[in-house]
């Protein structure tokens, strides 16, 4: 029977050297939050790095003694006897640089001013996240990962690892992702950013000093995000046109279930997520384009990769549709890389990568099971 990794504890890695971002900006020191599950073997060959997407964190699996209801975001995948089996693998979750769950980010204190960085925190990129994670890997004494895995934005990191540190990754699992955003994807991100930046409580990104949070903007940004994570069919099936009250109110209170859901998600998000981090994550998404330095030639960009790949897409995902994953598969085939590709007819939309579909989890279990340690 698959089980839970049980009670876990978050850890903090401290780096007292400067970190230089892709933009050229620099910070004098940084910290990264991480959690580990399972045991690193003597050969140090069984480490798997899990990269998170937009709103998740280093808390991938298990729960905290002080907060037993706070179960890790990918707990259905990671644990003893689960597809990413912690009896075999040493699994590492991390919160990326610029995040808001304890890793150095916009809410951290800027040593130069003694105040939170706020708007002065550099714009982060997927390349920066991977560079910082590489420092974490050094810190943990891991020269080479058995695998790096992620979904969506997390998958961009798994891909970037294979491109930036080809000798340090044996397998890259790229799920529900894309090698670059489309104009439509960037458009949704821009609406989210505008919602945050035009909130009167934003104060140019220095809201911490004013003791406020641009909650209205964050809320709308999250609502927009949620629309893109679900498919039309999934949303219709989950909410339909069900009314929250006996009859239409002919006013602007909540009529439909879907309105209630979006408001709830938006409210919840705005209480725990940092607006400056949100702005930076959407920029990281927008900027990511490994083919950019190769005249748009993805095959040329992938020539550096040495890892074996598993690419997974979901047919109902219109945010990062299967055609984007197939473009990555083609680039890998052009380079004669080892690759398997799953295109699942799953209903969950973009969020399907977080759900427990037996075909999906069966394939991941088979893939991880075949990784030799």
């Amino acid at each position, binding site marked *: 029977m698959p089980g839970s990794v049980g009670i876990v504890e978050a850890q903090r890695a401290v780096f007292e050297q400067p970190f230089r971002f892709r933009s050229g900006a620099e910070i004098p020191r940084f910290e990264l939050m991480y959690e580990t599950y399972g045991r690193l073997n003597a050969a140090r060959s069984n480490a798997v790095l899990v990269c998170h997407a937009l709103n998740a964190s280093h808390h991938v699996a298990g729960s905290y003694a002080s907060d037993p209801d706070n179960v890790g975001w990918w707990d259905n995948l990671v644990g003893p006897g689960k597809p990413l089996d912690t009896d075999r693998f040493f699994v590492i979750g991390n919160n990326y640089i610029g995040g808001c769950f304890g890793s150095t980010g916009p809410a951290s204190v800027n040593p130069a001013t003694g105040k939170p960085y706020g708007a002065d925190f550099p714009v982060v990129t997927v390349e920066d996240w991977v560079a910082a994670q590489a420092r974490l890997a050094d810190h943990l004494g891991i020269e080479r990962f058995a695998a790096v895995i992620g979904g969506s934005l997390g998958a961009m990191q798994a891909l970037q690892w294979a491109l930036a540190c080809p000798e340090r990754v044996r397998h890259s699992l790229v799920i529900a992702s894309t090698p670059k955003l489309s104009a439509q994807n960037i458009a949704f991100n821009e609406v989210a950013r505008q919602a945050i930046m035009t909130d009167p409580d934003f104060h140019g990104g220095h809201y911490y000093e004013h003791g406020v949070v641009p909650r209205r903007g964050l809320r709308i940004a999250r609502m927009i995000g949620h629309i893109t994570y679900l498919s039309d069919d999934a949303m219709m099936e989950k909410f339909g046109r069900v009314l929250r009250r006996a009859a239409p109110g002919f006013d602007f209170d909540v009529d439909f279930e879907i309105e209630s859901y979006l408001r709830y998600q938006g409210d919840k998000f705005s209480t725990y997520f940092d607006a400056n981090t949100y702005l930076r994550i959407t920029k990281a998404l927008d900027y990511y384009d490994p083919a950019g330095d190769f005249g748009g030639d993805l095959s040329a960009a992938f020539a550096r990769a040495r890892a074996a790949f598993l690419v997974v897409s979901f047919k109902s995902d219109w945010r990062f549709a299967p055609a984007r994953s*197939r473009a990555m598969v083609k680039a890998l*085939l052009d380079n004669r890389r080892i690759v398997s590709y*799953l295109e*699942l*007819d799953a209903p969950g939309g973009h969020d399907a990568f977080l759900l427990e579909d037996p075909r999906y989890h069966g*394939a991941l279990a*088979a893939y991880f099971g*075949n990784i030799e340690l």
Partner: protein
Amino acid sequence: MTRPDLEAIARWVAPGARVLDLGCGDGSLLKHLWDNHQAHGYGVEIDDAEVLASMRNDVNVLQLDLESGLALFHDASFDYVILSETLQTIHRIEQLTREMLRVGREVIVSFPNFGHWRDRLQVLLGRMPVSEELPHQWYDTPNVHLCTLADFEDLCARLGARILERAVLHRGRAVRVLPNLFGSIAVYRVTA
């Protein structure tokens, strides 16, 4: 591997070759080719359960629909493109055959021979054939394009493809006399 056509195919594949197996099922041919010929490559399969079985067999498998062509594959990027016992289920056979000839230096195809005497006899008696090789009833079959040896050779001629080798089998044995009448499985190796 128990299917006789797969044994014939495996005999033709040179050691160390790059292989693309279209409709690879559970990946057993690719696994056999890797274990015995160090020939490596990829399988293409659309069925979820077969894709999973291929992954469990540690075969590189790509979940794609053959009907939409082989756009992911470069010209002449494989030594062999294999289509075993799948031809008869394809809607756009001419297009796929052209694509196979583009992607592979050689193409290996196996299919049930509709010219076998028992199939002919059943049609003569007024029934759609049901046999070992064609076990489905007419109303419940994945097969959409059945053909005979002569038909397939016509298609090759039409596409300008050269037939390099042919094996005709019945119950695992080679058929040399009147193959289009006594063979139930045909295996061809062709090139552009």
